[in-house]
C-alpha cells in the first residue's frame, strides 16, 4: 500500500496525539498545487467538487460578478474568486480557487472541542468527520483562511476533504482531475514544490519578477499551495492572507487558557477543602442564639 494513500492519523481534534503507526514507512505528504497563472476560472473544479461530493448547493442569483456561488457554503467546498486588478495601463484578471488549505498546523483542528471531529492524516490531509462534529463553529474561529462553513440543516461543519476518499484509492482529488488546464496539480508535496519551481521560472521569464510559491510558514506550510504571479502581495488575490497564522486569540483560548482555567478551578476546590479541614465550619454558637433571642424579646416587648 502506497504511503501516500495512508489514512493513518497524525492528529485528532480534542484528543491526545495518536502514536505513530507501527511497522510502516514514514508517510509521504501530499499537496495540491494551484497554479493561478494557468487558471482560466472556468469553475470545472467547482462542478467536479459538487458532483463528486454530491453536494446540494441551491441555485442563487448573480451579483454582477463571475463569483458564483458568491462565497463558500456548506455545500460549496471551493469557489473561484475573481479580482479585477488594474495597474497603470495594464490590467490583470486574477482568479483564485479558494478552499481549504490543509494547513500543517490546522487552526480548525486546534479549535475543535469534539474528539475526532477533525483529523489530520499523516499524508497531510485535514478532514472533517461529520459523525463526530457537534456544530459549534469553533473551527470557523480557528481557521486563518475563513474556510469552514456550518450547515443550517444538519448543524455540522463542512469544507474541502481533499477528496480523501479518492486519494486513499489512488486517485487525484476531483478538482485536480477535472481541471482542464492543469492549473491544479496533485502529488507529493516535494514534487509539487519542485514543479512550482519550474512554473515560477517560466513566469519570471514572462516578466512576473515577483512570481513565487505560497506555502505560508505561519501555519507550518500548507498542503494546498498556490503559484502566484505576485507572490509578494498575496492579498491581491481576493484577500488571500499575506501572513496567515492561527489568531493569537485562538492561541490563548485553545492554549494556555485551558490548563490555567482548570488549574484555577481545581485550586479553588482544594482551597475550600483545606480551609474546611484546617479552620472548620463557621457555626452559630448557643451564645449567638441567646443574643438573638434576647434581642427578639427586647424588640417584641
Amino acid at each position, binding site marked *: 500500500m502506497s504511503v501516500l494513500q495512508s*489514512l493513518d492519523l497524525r492528529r485528532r481534534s480534542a484528543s491526545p496525539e495518536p502514536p505513530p503507526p507501527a511497522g510502516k514507512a514514514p508517510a509521504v505528504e501530499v499537496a495540491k498545487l494551484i497554479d493561478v497563472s494557468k487558471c482560466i476560472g472556468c469553475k*470545472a473544479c467547482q462542478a467536479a467538487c459538487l458532483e463528486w461530493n454530491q453536494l446540494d448547493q441551491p441555485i442563487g442569483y448573480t451579483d454582477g460578478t463571475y463569483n458564483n456561488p458568491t462565497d463558500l457554503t456548506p455545500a460549496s467546498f471551493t469557489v473561484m474568486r475573481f479580482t479585477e486588478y488594474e495597474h497603470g495601463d495594464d490590467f490583470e484578471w486574477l482568479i483564485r480557487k479558494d478552499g481549504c488549505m490543509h494547513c500543517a498546523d490546522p487552526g480548525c483542528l486546534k479549535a475543535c472541542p469534539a474528539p475526532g471531529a477533525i483529523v489530520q492524516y499523516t499524508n497531510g490531509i485535514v478532514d472533517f468527520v461529520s459523525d463526530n462534529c457537534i456544530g459549534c463553529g469553533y473551527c470557523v474561529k480557528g481557521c486563518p483562511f475563513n474556510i469552514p462553513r456550518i450547515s443550517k440543516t444538519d448543524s455540522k461543519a463542512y469544507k474541502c476533504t481533499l477528496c480523501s*476518499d479518492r486519494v486513499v484509492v489512488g486517485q487525484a482529488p476531483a478538482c485536480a482531475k477535472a481541471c482542464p488546464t492543469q492549473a491544479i496539480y496533485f502529488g507529493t508535496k516535494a514534487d509539487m514544490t519542485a514543479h512550482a519551481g519550474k512554473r515560477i521560472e517560466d513566469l519570471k521569464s514572462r516578466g512576473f519578477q515577483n512570481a513565487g510559491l505560497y506555502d505560508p510558514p505561519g501555519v507550518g506550510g500548507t498542503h494546498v499551495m498556490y503559484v502566484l504571479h505576485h507572490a509578494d502581495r498575496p492579498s491581491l488575490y481576493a484577500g488571500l492572507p499575506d501572513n496567515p497564522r492561527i489568531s493569537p486569540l485562538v492561541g490563548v483560548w485553545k492554549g494556555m487558557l485551558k490548563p490555567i482555567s482548570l488549574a484555577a478551578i481545581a485550586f479553588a476546590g482544594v482551597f475550600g477543602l483545606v480551609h474546611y479541614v484546617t479552620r472548620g465550619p463557621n457555626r452559630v454558637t448557643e451564645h449567638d442564639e441567646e443574643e438573638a433571642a434576647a434581642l427578639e424579646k427586647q424588640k417584641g416587648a
Partner: protein
Amino acid sequence: MAVTRRQFMKVSAAGLAASSVGALGFVDAGEALAAGARPYRLEKATETRNACPYCAVACGVLIYSTADGTSKDAKPKVVHIEGDPDHPVNRGTLCPRGAASLGYLHSANRLQYPMHRKPGTDKFERVSWDFALDRIAQLMKEDRDKNFIAKNRDGVTVNRWLSTGFFGGSSLSNEAGWLTYKFVRSTGILALEDQARI
C-alpha cells in the same frame, strides 16, 4: 463497452508523467476502504466509455452506472461521470459543463413521453408513440402532397418541397445524422439546416 472498474492516478499532465504522482499506483481497495473515513463510492459501479455531449472537443468520459439495490432486474442508473484519462485530447479533464453532465441526464426537464399540444390550448397532453408518429406522418403527407413542386416555372424538374422545414440536431451521432439526411432529403425538403451556421 463496459469495462471492469479500474483505478488510475493520472493527473494527466503530460509534463508530470515521470514524477512520483504517476507512481501512486494501485491499491488494495478493501484495505483502503477499511481505513478510510469516507468510502470510495464507485466501488461497485460499471464503467462505460462515452464522449461528452456538449462541445466539439468531444472529451472522453467515463460513465459510472449502477443498479439500485441488489435486484437483478433493477434498471441501471448513472451515478457519476468523470473524464477518461486515456483520451488523448482531454486526458481525464472536463470543463464545468462536462463535469456536471450527470445533471443533464437526470435533469427534471428531460422529456420522457411524447406530448401533444392542440392548437389554441395552453398545455401539453401525453400521447402514445403510435399516435404521435402516425399524426406526424399524416401531417407530412398532407402538406407534401399539397405543396410539392415537381417542376419550376421554366419546366425544369426540381422535385422540391418548401412548405416544411427541418432543423437537425448537431449533437446527434453520425449514424443518426445519416438517417436524418436520408429521411429528410428523400422527401424533397430543401429547408434542412443544423446548428452549424448558428
